[in-house]
């Protein structure tokens, strides 16, 4: 699948929401833990060799689950291939908790849910749709229930 790599690399150089050197292990059998600079930027997790400017790779953080594996370790799995775990080793319990929290909040879908909650709540309390004054109340992405059917039947 093609993607705009240059622009993604450019994105990886922007100020991050959170970044740290962590031990990272890929999902394949035989992958070992390696020290990586991990950067969270919008809904992407970029990982770099600690002395390099260009990232080795990126993970889009949609449709994924973050879990605490043990005191210092958390994992990311993607819902379409839940057996494959990316593991991250932190230096402290606090760091581990903070990263899990940050990653959970870094999906577009998570933010959309919050937006819908706030919108509904404000409307319930004031009788007004808070998005109306910005002229964006009709945008699909802000709808409480878009009601669109799934695009493709589930694969067998």
């Amino acid at each position, binding site marked *: *699948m*093609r*993607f*705009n790599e*240059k*622009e*993604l690399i*450019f*994105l990886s150089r*922007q*100020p991050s*929401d*959170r970044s740290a050197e962590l031990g990272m292990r890929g999902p394949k059998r035989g992958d070992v833990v390696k020290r990586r600079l991990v950067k969270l930027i*919008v*809904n992407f997790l970029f990982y770099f060799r600690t002395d390099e400017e260009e990232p*080795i*790779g*990126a*993970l*889009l953080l*949609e*449709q*994924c689950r973050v879990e605490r594996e043990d005191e210092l370790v958390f994992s990311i799995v*993607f*819902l*379409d*291939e839940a057996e494959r775990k990316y593991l991250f080793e932190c230096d402290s319990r606090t760091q581990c908790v*903070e990263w899990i*929290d*940050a990653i*959970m*909040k870094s999906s*577009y*879908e998570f*933010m*959309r849910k*919050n*937006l819908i909650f*706030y*919108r509904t*709540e*404000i409307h319930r*309390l*004031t*009788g*007004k749709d*808070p*998005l109306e*004054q*910005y*002229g*964006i109340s009709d*945008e*699909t*992405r*802000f709808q409480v229930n*878009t*009601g669109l059917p*799934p*695009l493709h039947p589930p694969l067998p």
Partner: protein
Amino acid sequence: MKLNERSVAHYATCNSPPDKTGILFKKGERNTAYHRRWFILKGNMLFYFEEKESREPIGVIVLEGCTVELCESESEEFAFAIKFDCTKAKMYKMAAESQAAMESWVKALSRASFDYMRLVVKELERQLEEVQEEARSLQIKNKQKKHQPQVQAATPGFRGASVTGFSQLRNPLEEELPSLGSSSRENGVSWNKPQSVVNGISEGWAWEGEGDCSGKGDGFRRPPIPPRRKTVGGLLGSPVSPGTDCFSKLHDWYGKEVAELRIEWLQGQ
């Protein structure tokens, strides 16, 4: 650079609702002809398929940091371009099937960034806090005046919680259909200062800490704490976080409070 492509492709076709779908003509990268493709916009990702029935996307355009502009094309009507700010960046030239389709796509794409969504969420979060504060202080006033015969003047209640000048959220297309150049904060220049977009909002925030899970019934309006920058994405324990149950407590408490308030106000009429 590696990308978790399989999972990204899965995101395109899984049953989370897309933000927009439709046919667009995309100018080829080597071959300069425009190719008809089926597009799916989800979040800040624009996927394109050979056709609507295809199971796997041919490709995806990550939209974070892009600007969307109308453009002139010799061969195509209703043309627009997705541009990026980085050096040697690609420009994706697209054409829609009608004027209406073009405007709709330009609108949807220019607000597709994660940063923009984050802005809107923070703004609504702030508004909700404001509404809640007003309701709390209204309840105090009501309690104090309960034994006085005077009719309460038309209270603003918690209607019209005003929002101070949040022009960034406005539809830029209402003015004209320009390039969302450097004066726009929506998608265009997030790159130059992504932090400052968020910080620009947090400077107006006064409230530290979330909700009033503990503050129930003490009835005092908390003095505003000087504004402080919140770390992007680092709102630990905020009502937004699914990890805490403050969220549902807040929700329930507030609902009860509003019910009481309504009754009192009606009795005072």
